[in-house]
């Protein structure tokens, strides 16, 4: 048996888009080689500590036919192709490339021979999802260990062939050389005709970063050519035969209950399928326009309730605490005593608004039913979570639901839920034809979820010598990520207080770490000014964490801190911290126009350290990208709402960073080959907002404690403050 049957063949990159024949396929060990073809395979078993973290705990509902214990796998085919499989997804963070680099590196093969199969519930083992900056620290070593085990297996095979010992052999470039005779065997030759599958040994050593050859190097995005030619198919680009386009009747406000609906006019339109299921009303039609018309022809009556407004958001959050969910405070020493003996005290409140992810590819899904089985293509960070939601909502065993994630047009923490997938699936079931749902930008701004708003109250105290004596920190609603201070304070009281959010809220790049760092690093700046100590010196005086010190020092050096002021309105500031294993310090220079009130960010330098760097080019792209994205939340992005409606659900009203907003950007990457790599998709965003706020204070003497800081310029902010 040399080739997999045609319908099982996995084509790199495009496999997910036209593999309808795979419907019946659930990857079981006994079928593995039937599907993948002859070769050598290594299964990563989820029972081991590291992979279990990524694979999570399965709920054991209707998934008996999925290999529960496998969390990733690797296959070397008899053509030398290496297929590595993981439930992680590619959403622009470049994980497809960095994971492939790690596998190639460990297996000693060129990057071009690696095929990554990602985010497909029928092909890839269970995975909790692509979030929390976990792919590099957890999935990458897992795949490396599988690759390392595969390499050992190949060495054993070669040693047996030559009747010699594995240590008399050398591995490089996808082949094994017999050092004594000079004979070589390629991986392809060794895999020929074999069906050898091993579980990964418990502790197979992986190559330390200092010895990496493929990893650690700047490598371009895999299959990037398809993106510059328009050939890559994102979910909205899929067009299965007989496709219908779906539209959903949206309620007039959040929480509205359907009282009555007259569907007759919509149902009368030719070729239109209308679905009503509880409060869900939707239509599918041969064109988007026909579906829109059908929805417009529905007369529906809704019952709505008065709801709060973004104008009173912060008092609302404080008044609507969710005390049942209350979290235990982190306490050390006595914050009260520490404050009492402080030479300088600070007591301040900081706020952050709700913001939207606005991925340029809106939430979208294509659903297709065949033989009572459902396949959904959708851009999600949680293919298995979406599978579970579909299974529950449609009362369908999970083995009849397949979720496939084409490489997606960004997510930023916003694509965790199954919304569009559910809508498309429900319509497709009624229409008995494939249905595509692509949310409009207004739907995206309204019916997705938002980064939580929050109120943060800080009390800080310092002694006459500038040492912190007390730190009290309360975060209301926004979240606990990055809430702990990295500075040395003997007396601490730190607490997250959940609240009943008036809007649907959820994950976002960096989560609450952006809010918590904004508040903490702004307060640190205020304390430094109160004590009349240089802000960098003040931080260093209170900081022993050598990795955080290193990024502050590196960024300060590249930025040229302290910066001499050459003109009016010029100011500079910094912000930094530790989160998800990454260390960041950002310095910003701003220009404030006194007359117009315009704030322009002129220059940003970010130093970042996340252990050993897997792909410096990809990392630089992430660090710069995170800072550019962060400009929006720092300066002008804010979701406004009133009575259950989003009042600025358009790009014309909700300002995201554009070319003219982009400062001169510099990323300083600290490569620690002595440390394992951590994730990098999120943490580089957290230093920017406080750096800008502190720079605005430096330039104008005005302290801005609310994100976004200048949605309508400095003058409007001053007037309303």
């Amino acid at each position, binding site marked *: 048996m040399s080739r997999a049957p045609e319908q099982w063949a996995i084509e790199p990159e495009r496999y997910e888009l036209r593999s309808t024949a795979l419907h019946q396929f659930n990857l079981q060990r006994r079928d593995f080689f039937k599907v993948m073809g002859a070769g050598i395979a290594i299964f990563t078993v989820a029972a081991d500590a590291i992979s279990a973290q990524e694979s999570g705990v399965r709920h054991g509902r209707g998934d008996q036919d999925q290999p529960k214990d496998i969390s990733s796998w690797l296959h070397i085919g008899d053509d030398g192709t290496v297929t590595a499989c993981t439930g992680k997804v590619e959403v622009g963070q470049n994980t497809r490339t960095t994971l492939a680099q790690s596998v190639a590196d460990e297996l000693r093969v060129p990057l071009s021979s690696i095929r990554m199969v990602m985010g497909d519930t029928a092909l890839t083992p269970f995975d909790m999802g692509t979030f929390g900056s976990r792919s590099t620290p957890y999935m990458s070593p897992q795949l490396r260990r599988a690759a390392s085990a595969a390499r050992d297996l190949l060495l054993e095979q070669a040693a047996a062939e030559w009747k010699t010992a594995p240590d008399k052999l050398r591995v490089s470039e996808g082949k094994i050389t017999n050092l004594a005779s000079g004979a070589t065997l390629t991986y392809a030759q060794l895999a020929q005709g074999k069906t050898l599958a091993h579980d990964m040994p418990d502790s197979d050593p992986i190559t330390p970063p200092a010895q990496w050859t493929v990893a650690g190097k700047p490598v371009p995005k895999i299959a990037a050519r398809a993106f510059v030619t*328009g050939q890559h198919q994102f979910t909205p680009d899929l067009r299965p035969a007989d496709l219908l386009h779906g539209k959903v009747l949206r309620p007039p406000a959040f929480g509205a209950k359907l009282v009555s609906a007259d569907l007759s006019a919509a149902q009368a339109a030719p070729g239109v399928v209308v679905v009503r299921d509880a409060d869900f009303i939707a239509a599918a039609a041969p064109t988007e*326009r026909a579906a829109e018309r059908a929805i417009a022809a529905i007369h529906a009556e809704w019952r709505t309730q008065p709801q709060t407004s973004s104008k009173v958001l912060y008092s609302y959050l404080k008044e609507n605490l969710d005390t049942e969910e209350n979290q235990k405070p982190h306490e050390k020493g006595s914050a009260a005593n520490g404050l009492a003996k402080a030479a300088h005290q600070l007591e301040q409140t900081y706020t952050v608004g709700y913001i939207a992810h606005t991925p340029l*590819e809106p939430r979208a899904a294509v659903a297709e039913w065949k033989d009572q089985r459902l396949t959904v293509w959708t851009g999600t960070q949680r293919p298995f979570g979406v599978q579970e939601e579909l299974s529950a909502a449609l009362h369908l065993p999970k083995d009849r639901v397949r979720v496939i994630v084409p*490489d997606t047009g*960004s997510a930023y923490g916003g694509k965790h839920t199954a919304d569009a997938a559910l809508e498309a699936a429900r319509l497709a079931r009624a229409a008995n034809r494939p249905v595509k749902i692509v949310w409009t*930008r207004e739907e995206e701004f309204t019916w997705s979820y938002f980064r939580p708003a929050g109120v943060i109250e800080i009390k800080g105290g310092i002694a006459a010598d500038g040492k912190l004596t007390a730190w009290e920190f309360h975060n209301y609603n926004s979240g606990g990520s990055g809430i702990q201070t990295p500075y040395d304070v003997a007396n601490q009281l730190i607490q997250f207080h959940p609240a009943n959010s008036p809007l649907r809220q959820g994950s976002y790049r960096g989560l609450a770490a952006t809010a918590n760092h904004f508040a903490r690093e702004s307060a640190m700046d205020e304390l430094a000014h109160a004590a009349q100590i240089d802000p960098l010196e003040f931080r260093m005086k209170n900081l022993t964490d050598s990795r955080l010190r290193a990024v502050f020092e590196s960024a300060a050096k590249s930025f040229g801190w302290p910066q001499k002021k050459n003109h009016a309105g010029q100011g500079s500031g910094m912000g930094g911290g530790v989160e998800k294993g990454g260390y960041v310090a950002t310095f910003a220079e701003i220009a404030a126009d006194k007359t117009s009130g315009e704030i322009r960010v002129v220059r940003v330098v970010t130093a970042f350290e996340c252990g050993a760097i897997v792909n410096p080019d990809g990392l630089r792209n992430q660090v710069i*990208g995170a800072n550019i994205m962060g400009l929006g939340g720092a300066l002008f992005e804010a979701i406004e709402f009133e009575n259950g409606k989003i009042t600025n659900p358009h790009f014309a009203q909700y300002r995201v960073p554009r070319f003219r907003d*982009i400062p001169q*950007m510099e990323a300083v990457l600290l490569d620690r080959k002595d440390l394992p790599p951590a994730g990098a998709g999120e943490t580089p965003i957290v230093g920017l907002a406080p750096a800008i706020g502190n720079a605005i204070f430096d330039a104008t003497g005005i302290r801005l404690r609310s994100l976004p800081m200048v949605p309508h310029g400095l003058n409007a902010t001053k007037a309303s403050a």
Partner: protein
Amino acid sequence: MATPVHAEINGKSRTFASDPNTSLLFALREELGLTGTKYGCGEGQCGACTILLNGTPRRSCQLSVADGAGKSILTIEGFEQNGQLHPVQQAFLDQGAFQCAYCTSGMIVTSVALLHNNSSPSESEIVQALEGNICRCGAHPRIIAAVQQAAKAMHGGRS
């Protein structure tokens, strides 16, 4: 039945089966399968759906099929010639000027139009030309570098 609309699309004469009132973006994508042109907002605010209409960059989400009648339409799929990328496409590839790359088609089409009118734009002219194109991943500095690289390559090729 309205008269079918003819247009020259990526160098080939085509007839739209779609109703002339259909959004040009929808017809290009769903009828003709030219899905490289993206929907980003449907409001003419993000530039993901940019095409060249008689050489001018236009938001196809703001046009109808009828607007294309008798005109030449160039989409991202029309720039590669005999397997050879357009210098702007090549420059985006060389600079790694994307992350998720959903905005890339619109960025490339807009940049091609800019370089057609201005063979060596300054940085601020590039910023101005791309102001209507949104990139959420923050690839802006690399996109600017890509346009600069393409300008050099195209300028060099001509002289």
